[in-house]
């Protein structure tokens, strides 16, 4: 097998997943949060593809393709919601979205 081994890919994808989940948890702009979600999904894609090559089947690659479609539709819905909210001219800041609380 050419190229770096499975461990290098896994390290990169775990780091990406960590950055993504940290972004979701601490960033305030919903746009950045959506971006971080994409990062998490894509780190999972990288894992799937790396493992797919490692175990020698193509299931993981097909899975990764399907995940890209899902990620795109999620982004569409998320961006649509942000546009709809921006019509209310509120600050785009998830910490200030606190009408719903109890």
């Amino acid at each position, binding site marked *: 097998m050419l190229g770096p081994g499975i461990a290098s890919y896994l390290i990169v994808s775990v780091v990406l997943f960590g950055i993504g989940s940290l972004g979701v948890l601490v960033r305030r702009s919903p746009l950045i949060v959506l971006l971080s979600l994409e990062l998490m999904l894509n780190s999972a894609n990288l894992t799937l593809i790396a*493992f797919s090559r490692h175990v020698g089947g193509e299931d993981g690659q097909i*899975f990764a393709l*399907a995940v890209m479609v899902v990620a795109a539709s999620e982004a569409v819905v998320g961006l649509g919601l942000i546009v709809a909210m921006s019509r209310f001219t509120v600050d785009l800041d998830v910490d200030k979205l606190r009408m719903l*609380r109890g």
Partner: protein
Amino acid sequence: MDFRTPDIDWAALAPVLVLMGTSAFVLLVGVFLPRGARRGFSATFTALGLLCAAIAAGILFAQDETASLTLRESIWRDRLAEMAQILVCGAGLLAVGVSYWERRAPVDDDGTEAPADEHERIVELYALLLAAVGGMAFFVQADNLMALFLGLEWFSIALYILTAISVHRLSSLEAGLKYLIVGSFGSAILLFGSAFVYGATGALEFRAIAEASGDAERLFLVAGLALILVGLAFKMSAAPFHMWTPDVYQGAPTSITAFMAAATKVAALVLTMRVLTTAFPGEEELWTWGLAGIACVSLVWGNLAALVQTDVKRLLAYSSVSHAGFLLMPIAAGNELGGRALLFYLVSYAAMSVGSFAIVAARERELRRPVTLENLGGFGWERPFYGVTMAVFMFGFIGLPPAGLFLGKFYAFAAAYERGWTWLVIVGVLGTVISIYYYLGVIAAMYMRPAEARVAPAGGSPPRDLPLATTVFLALIVTVGSLVAADPLIDLMRDAVASLTFPH
């Protein structure tokens, strides 16, 4: 070039195909109808589609003595999936009744009349409702990590949009965005876990995972299983992964809340039971204890947080978190009795969830503002049918007759006891004792507030709402009927879980 089409058992896909076909039909035809005709048209066909899908699932249930796989072994055709499909379609059917007049006079957050174009989105609402039910029907059939993830996202994305469909209300949009962010976070965790399980075993299909797990890399397999559990716990709103639940339940249109509370729980819990027993029988030590832990946290946290709520939708949201705990108990027990208990519990729980949110919707439409314990005062005297029914539901949530949950809770405790987990039963009983306080608080708010504290309905007498009243009546019948017909129902559930092999 050799081109062959795969061998597909179309009958196994019938419920999903009916639902998605109806969804497309409602959306495409609804656009061309005059505005006045859209509501009646889309609601009628949505109800018909859900009914046909439920009947298709029922016919399959009667036929399928043994379980089989189709679509290259990625989905099941078995009684467990078909029973779950019937339940999900039933919840959708009740939600159609709740949502029928919801948007007759939509209100903004400040109680003023919403702009007129709000009345138009009724077709989209029903098309998305059908798509969500279709996604759940597909999800519960999954026998493959890919089908699991795709089914999960399929119904989740439909639910994100449904939550935010009242675009004139900022609170609805806020709930939608929160649900999207937290829901996708959970899905991403589940996906990452699936990738690790795939890496450890080299398989995506559940039984192949079980076969390969013997000589799999333990670290990857255990990490993957844990991440999958966390992802599913987000969907079933079990504590400590429930933080989205109160906000989303409060902000979403009440009819959608009613649907989500019932149907998402059915789909997520049935699939959790399937994936754990089918794909991870060798790791049962891990997941039974893990689920028992999540169940305890949900029972304690959900019940304690519900005590301090004043908004009725939020209160019911925390109640649903605590019921996630009760529902996880039989799965954690990992025995056949637990499987039966879970499905039996879900029947009356789903009916009561839709029913209680429907009654909240009735009050909301009278007052034109969010329902709190405060402004529920006198509701029981003004609307005797809704009052008595709400009281039945509240007693039912506690686990008292005449609701089927009385036996459901008993079976759930019995399953944990059979496993030898008396401590879990004790936690469950303690949770029930705490819950008596807030469930009775709702009844007290309806009947025991002094007359001067009552809030008059906006604009005189409340509007007639026959679809809503019918829904509440049907939910009541299912709730009480599941106790009356408990014996045949439990036999049905025994057939439904026959295709699973339980570790204990």
